[in-house]
């Protein structure tokens, strides 16, 4: 897979939603992922295949179940390409600040 595949996979709201759900709770089955989504099971299956082909999702069989995991490695590779070595900490601080200011409920 190439970086093009990663960007193409990310250029879709439904697929980003699936990644958000895995980010919130890693290791879900197809059934878990479909729950509460306005997408057919078939559509979710298709999106997951695209995400897996782009290496954004990794899967693992556990008994009879197939679990889906968010694989952050390609996203990290994108960040490494454009984020300089000294910017990382400042960006993390800015991102924390933004998250704090924008959240209504906080942990």
């Amino acid at each position, binding site marked *: 897979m190439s970086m093009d595949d990663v960007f193409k996979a990310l250029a879709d709201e439904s697929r980003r939603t699936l990644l958000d759900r895995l980010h919130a709770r890693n290791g879900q089955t197809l059934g878990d992922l479909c729950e509460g989504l306005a997408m057919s099971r078939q559509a979710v299956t298709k999106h997951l295949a695209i995400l897996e082909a782009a290496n954004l999702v990794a899967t693992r069989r556990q008994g009879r179940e197939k679990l889906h995991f968010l694989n952050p490695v390609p996203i990290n590779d994108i960040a*490494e390409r454009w984020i300089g070595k000294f910017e990382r900490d400042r960006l993390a601080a800015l991102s924390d600040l933004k998250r704090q200011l924008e959240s209504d409920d906080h942990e």
Partner: protein
Amino acid sequence: MSRQFIHVTYIRTTPEKLWEALIRPEFTRRYWVESWQDCEWKVGAPWRMLGPDGEVKDAGEVLEYDPPRRLVLSWRNEFIPEAKAEGYSRCTYELEPAGDAVKLTLTHEFQTENSRLYQGVSGGWPLILASLKSLLETGDALEATKRWPENV
């Protein structure tokens, strides 16, 4: 919440070279924040990860050793008391040829929900894996992984 994560990366190298890079101190020191592993590399052998100051950062045992395909370690953090109290996690490396590259699948499983070790390493692994890839493909590791981080 899940008690495991899976990270997958494709590295243009051979399984043999990747295997060496995963275990030999002269490689790991370059992409793994100056850390190195002290181990006899056989099933049942004790395993220790040492930081640049020689302090034991993590420790465990070799559970499976099948070069250059599969390595399984039990893994406990030794320098963060809350993480150490969680006991052993399990870390599996799987190497599979994939065209002109090797698919490296890293699975790290934890015994406890909301594991402190999970929080610590889940953010670190993608960077270490990216640096390992960079070292094998370009001969140079990523700058961010060349030194043990100051705040840890």
